[in-house]
Structures are given as structure tokens and as C-alpha cells.
């Protein structure tokens, strides 16, 4: 069978890439290698099982709609809790205490909004992607092109950030060369998505979420046990150990200027509204049966994610106390080995020796693989379901062709992501996650929200306002300090703020509003008239099952 041959071929390629790697190896951690291999074998087994159940586009995009609310909640948490947030936030808490907590909060506060405003109507109106909802009563072609562009930009930036991070972590933990690590991750994610579609991706997320939550729980438990389970004792020991002393219990910038104040507010907006515009998260709501399960999904997801951030916070403080006075974890120049992102990894060694280090390293690796798979699936769905099916097939349904397109899109995305991951190896890519959230907040979120709640939204308004939001976000990030100064090495940024969301989100909303109310076309009238029927369906779910069959 063709499928089988391709599968075996990619696996051989993967094995060969790892084999041929001649990087100098650090001492091999047996637990890490065993667990990592076990994870790869189990997930490939699941992919093989899922591949035989992935026959239609409904299977590929939405796992046939048969995921339960609890499973989906865990899978959403799996999609959202990236290695970047696990290692990154623990590292931020380790270096600056309270400021790390701010990031954790920002990543969580979007979730109640997803539950209250987005999840149920999204499930009631859509089928596979959020573009289904945005284009429900508007013109298919322009809205889908815009929504797919917003999705793809978000996915690509997010993917580059994750892949570069992955390459660095694997290079450090397993002693593989950077390129080998990125290619290996790229091949595995492409395999999961191409063959197993949403079903395999969901199960990869579930396993990863359980591993990550149990690993982080164990670490937090071990940390707290050192302090008699008292936060107060943990904080007072941390303040004693940390060079900045009690300053880590409050914002480090005690006299912020206007620019950093506005940047902070702007980042807050990007994180809060961006969460509700992430295509790989929105897509998850179509894997459950109905709005009730969608609601349940977010409830569980918020619980898991909030719990996880509390754990990372504890881990960060544990790292302050247990690492800072231990020279084993520092290089000769006084820096933490592998950079501050490695704080959680070193802490696992300090707490449980090589065994726990191996376990947490393998968990970090599983986390990376799961997140990039979810992103790749969202990207390929935008290409095949929103662009190919609407523009090339012109809305005439052709299961076979659309399936082929989605698999081809997955492979192309995998190749592009790996190439970009290699190109960006030595760039600081931390800003890319911020940029992904900013684009999601400035383009995807306003279009989606207003299409569901604002009667007077028209195609022209959505397209012009949404594009303005998208372009403003991109242009201002390039002209801002993170790209203009840090990447292009100019002396001074043209746009002074690190995060443009406060401007780009506002511009998107004003643009959509203005161009909608100025739109006096016949289309605009018809689109307004179609709102009532759409609203009834979004609120009650009546008409949903009928739509899913056709």
C-alpha cells in the first residue's frame, strides 16, 4: 500500500538522520533516551492506528467529531502548554520572580473569554476551521482568504519559534546537532499529521498533557516538600538566595517610563485577545459533538492550564533556591548552563538526579512534538479547507481531492517550517510567539467576534478592517525594537513599543466598524438580513447536525 511505503520511508529517513549525526555526545542519559524512544514508538503506533480511521475530511480535520469534552479539554491544554511556556516561564520566574508570574497570568486570562464569548457559538456555526464561522453569512472567497492568511501567519511564526526552541533544547539535552534535531522533529510532526490527522494529533496531545502535568506536579511537590509546604518559607529562602533580594517579589521596573508602561498594556491585550484567535486552538472545538461538550472542554482546559502555570511558578522559585548556590549548574562565566530557559531542567536534576532529569527532558521533547503537530494541522487545514476547497474546487465538494490537498499541504508546511527553523537558528525568536499572539488578536479575533455578535458586519468591513489589523501588526513589529534593533541591528527603533497590539487591535476594530457602516451595497443589506438566522443557530445549535451531514 502506498501509505505504508511512505510511512516506512519517512521513518528510515528519520533514523538515518539521527544515525548520521556526528555531533560530540555528552554523557548519555539512559532514562531520557528510553523514555523519548518509548514516546516516539507509542505515538507512531497511534498514528498508524489513526491512519486507518482517517478516511474522510471530517476525520482529518475533526477526528470525526467523536472526542469527549474532558478529552478535548486535556488536548486543548496540551496544545497550549508549550515547552516555551514550561521552560520559558519557569526561567523568567527564576531570573525575575514576580515578572515571570505576569506572563503566566497573561497566557491564562484569555481562557474565560474563550468560554464566555467564543466556544459555544463557534461550535454551533462552524465545521472545521474558524473561517467557516467568519464566512457563515459573508462572502466565502474574500473572507476565507483573509482568515486563512491570518491563520497561516500565526501558525508559521508560532512554528518557527517552537522549532528553533526545540532544536536548541534537543541539541543541549540529547547531544544531537541542531539541524538534525529540527529535521527530526519536522519529520515526526509531518508523519503524525499527514497520516493520522486530527485523531492522531489529539492522542499525541493527550499523552503529552498527562506527561507534562504529572512531571510538573512531581517537581512542584518535591520543591514544596523542601519548604514544609509553606509558600512563605519558599519565598523567604528565595529572597535570601537571589541577587536581587526582595525586589523579585514585585515588578522589577519600579519607575517605568511611558513607553514600557504602554508596551506592558499592549502585551496584555495581545495575550488576552490573541488566545481567542489562535487557529490551532479554535480548531479543537470542532472535534466534539456539540456546544455542551465545547463548553466542558474550555472549563477543563482552563483548570489544567491554570494549575500548570501555578506549578511552573513554584518550579521557578524552587530553581532560585536550589540552583543559585550550586556551582555544578553554572558555567565558568557565572551563567546558568544552557541559558536561563534550562532552569527547570537543571532543577529536575537537583531534585531527583539523573532519573528525574531524564524524565523531564523526555517530557519537554514530547511537549515540543505535540505543539508543533497541532500547529501544522491548523496550517494545513487553512490551506486545504479554506483556500483549496473554496478557490480551486470553487465550493464543489470533492472528498478525495481535498484529502490529497490537505496531506500535500501538511508535507509542504513541514518542509517550509524545517527550512525556516534552520535559517532562524541564530536569531532571537522569542518575539515570534508574541507576534503570533499579536496577529491572532489583531486579525482573527476581531473578525471572529464581530461575525458572531455584530449584526452590521459586512464582507467589505471585515476584509478591509481585518487586513488593516494584520498589516499594522506585522509592520509595527518589524519597525519596533525587537526586529529593527535586535534582528537588523539598527541603532534606534522607528516604532518605540515592543508590542503593537494596543494599536493594531484598535485599528482592526475601528476599521471593521467604519468600513461596515459605510458599506451601502446590496450585499451588505443581505448580509445584515442573514444575521438573525445565524444568531438563532449560534445560540441554540439548531441546524447543526444537518449541516455536518452535507
Amino acid at each position: 500500500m502506498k501509505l505504508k511505503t511512505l510511512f516506512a520511508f519517512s521513518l528510515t529517513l528519520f533514523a538515518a538522520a539521527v544515525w548520521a549525526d556526528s555531533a560530540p555526545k555528552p554523557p548519555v542519559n539512559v532514562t531520557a533516551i528510553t523514555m523519548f524512544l518509548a514516546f516516539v514508538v507509542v505515538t507512531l503506533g497511534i498514528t498508524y492506528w489513526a491512519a486507518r480511521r482517517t478516511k474522510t475530511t471530517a476525520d482529518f480535520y475533526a477526528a470525526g467529531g467523536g472526542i469527549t469534552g474532558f478529552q478535548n479539554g486535556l488536548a486543548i491544554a496540551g496544545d497550549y502548554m508549550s515547552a516555551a511556556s514550561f521552560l520559558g516561564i519557569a526561567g523568567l520566574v527564576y531570573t525575575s520572580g514576580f515578572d515571570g508570574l505576569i506572563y503566566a497570568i497573561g497566557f491564562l486570562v484569555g481562557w474565560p473569554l474563550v468560554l464566555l464569548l467564543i466556544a459555544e457559538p463557534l461550535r454551533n456555526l462552524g465545521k472545521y476551521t474558524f473561517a467557516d464561522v467568519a464566512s457563515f453569512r459573508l462572502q466565502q472567497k474574500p473572507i476565507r482568504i483573509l482568515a486563512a492568511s491570518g491563520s497561516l501567519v500565526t501558525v508559521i511564526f508560532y512554528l518557527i519559534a517552537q522549532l528553533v526552541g526545540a532544536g536548541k533544547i534537543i541539541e543541549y539535552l540529547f547531544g544531537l546537532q541542531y539541524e538534525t534535531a529540527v529535521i527530526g522533529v519536522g519529520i515526526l510532526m509531518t508523519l503524525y499529521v499527514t497520516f493520522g490527522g486530527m485523531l492522531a494529533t489529539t492522542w499525541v496531545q493527550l499523552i503529552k498533557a498527562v506527561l507534562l502535568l504529572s512531571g510538573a506536579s512531581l517537581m512542584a511537590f518535591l520543591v514544596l516538600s523542601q519548604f514544609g509546604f509553606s509558600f512563605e518559607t519558599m519565598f523567604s529562602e528565595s529572597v535570601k538566595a537571589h541577587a536581587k533580594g526582595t525586589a523579585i517579589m514585585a515588578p522589577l521596573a519600579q519607575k517605568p517610563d511611558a513607553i514600557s508602561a504602554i508596551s506592558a498594556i499592549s502585551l496584555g491585550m495581545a495575550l488576552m485577545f490573541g488566545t481567542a484567535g489562535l487557529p490551532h486552538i479554535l480548531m479543537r472545538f470542532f472535534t466534539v459533538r456539540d456546544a455542551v461538550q465545547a463548553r466542558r472542554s474550555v472549563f477543563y482546559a482552563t483548570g489544567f492550564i491554570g494549575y500548570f502555570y501555578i506549578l511552573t511558578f513554584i518550579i521557578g522559585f524552587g530553581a532560585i533556591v536550589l540552583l543559585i548556590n550550586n556551582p555544578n549548574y553554572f558555567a565558568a562565566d557565572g551563567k546558568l548552563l544552557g541559558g536561563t530557559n534550562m532552569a527547570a531542567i537543571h532543577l529536575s536534576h537537583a531534585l531527583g538526579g539523573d532519573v528525574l532529569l531524564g524524565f523531564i527532558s523526555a517530557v519537554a521533547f514530547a511537549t515540543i512534538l505535540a505543539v508543533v503537530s497541532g500547529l501544522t494541522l491548523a496550517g494545513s487545514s487553512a490551506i486545504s479547507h479554506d483556500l483549496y476547497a473554496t478557490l480551486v474546487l470553487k465550493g464543489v465538494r470533492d472528498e478525495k481531492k481535498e484529502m490529497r490537498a490537505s496531506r500535500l499541504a501538511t508535507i509542504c508546511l513541514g518542509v517550509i517550517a524545517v527550512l525556516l527553523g534552520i535559517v532562524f537558528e541564530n536569531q532571537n525568536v522569542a518575539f515570534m510567539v508574541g507576534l503570533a499572539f499579536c496577529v491572532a488578536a489583531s486579525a482573527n479575533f476581531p473578525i471572529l467576534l464581530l461575525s458572531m455578535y455584530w449584526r452590521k458586519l459586512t464582507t467589505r468591513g471585515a476584509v478591509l478592517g481585518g487586513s488593516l489589523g494584520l498589516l499594522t501588526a506585522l509592520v509595527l513589529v518589524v519597525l519596533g525594537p525587537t526586529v529593527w534593533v535586535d534582528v537588523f541591528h539598527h541603532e534606534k527603533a522607528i516604532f518605540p513599543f515592543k508590542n503593537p497590539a494596543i494599536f493594531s487591535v484598535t485599528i482592526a476594530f475601528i476599521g471593521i466598524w467604519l468600513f461596515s457602516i459605510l458599506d451601502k451595497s446590496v450585499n451588505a443589506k443581505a448580509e445584515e438580513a442573514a444575521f438573525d438566522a445565524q444568531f438563532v443557530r449560534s445560540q441554540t445549535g439548531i441546524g447543526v447536525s444537518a449541516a455536518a451531514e452535507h
Partner: protein
Amino acid sequence: MSHLEQISALPEYIALTRARKKIVWPLSIAVIAAYFALILTIAFYPASLGSPVANGVTSVGIALGLGIILYCMVITGIYVAYANGVIEPLTRVIAQKAGALK
């Protein structure tokens, strides 16, 4: 009247949209307000977050920060409880009546 117009005229449907409005907007504003209150305090009055809660080291900022994480979980809990108790029964009646209207 079309089927959907008939549904939107049902008393249960009107009750449903009212019930949703009553819970969704206040809770959304409660989350947005709490978060931006914290962000604005960080931006303009950072010193106030450094003062200790009791006589110890734990600061107001840390307590508020962890508090907001729990607050988000509580908000989702309140909404789900309300949705199960009030919104779901209405939706079920509407679905039944909509089936009969066809």
C-alpha cells in the same frame, strides 16, 4: 414565518438570549477589568505591589497574581454551573419545540 423566525419567537428562546446576556457580559467584564487593573497597577504603581501581605516576605503582587489565576478558574466554574442549570434546560425545550414546528 420561516422555521427560524418561529423559533426566535418562542418564549424559551427569548428567555435563553436574556439568560446568556445576563451572565456572559458581566463575567467577561469581570475578567477583563481584573486583568487590566493588575496590568495598569504594574505599569503605573509598581511599588504598591511590593508591600508584604502580612509580616512576611509574600508580597501583595504575588498574592494578587496567584489570586487572578484562581479567579479565572472560578469564573469558568460559575459560568458552567449557570449554563448547566439555566441555559441547558431552555436549549432542550427549544430543540424539542423546534422539532415539532417543522
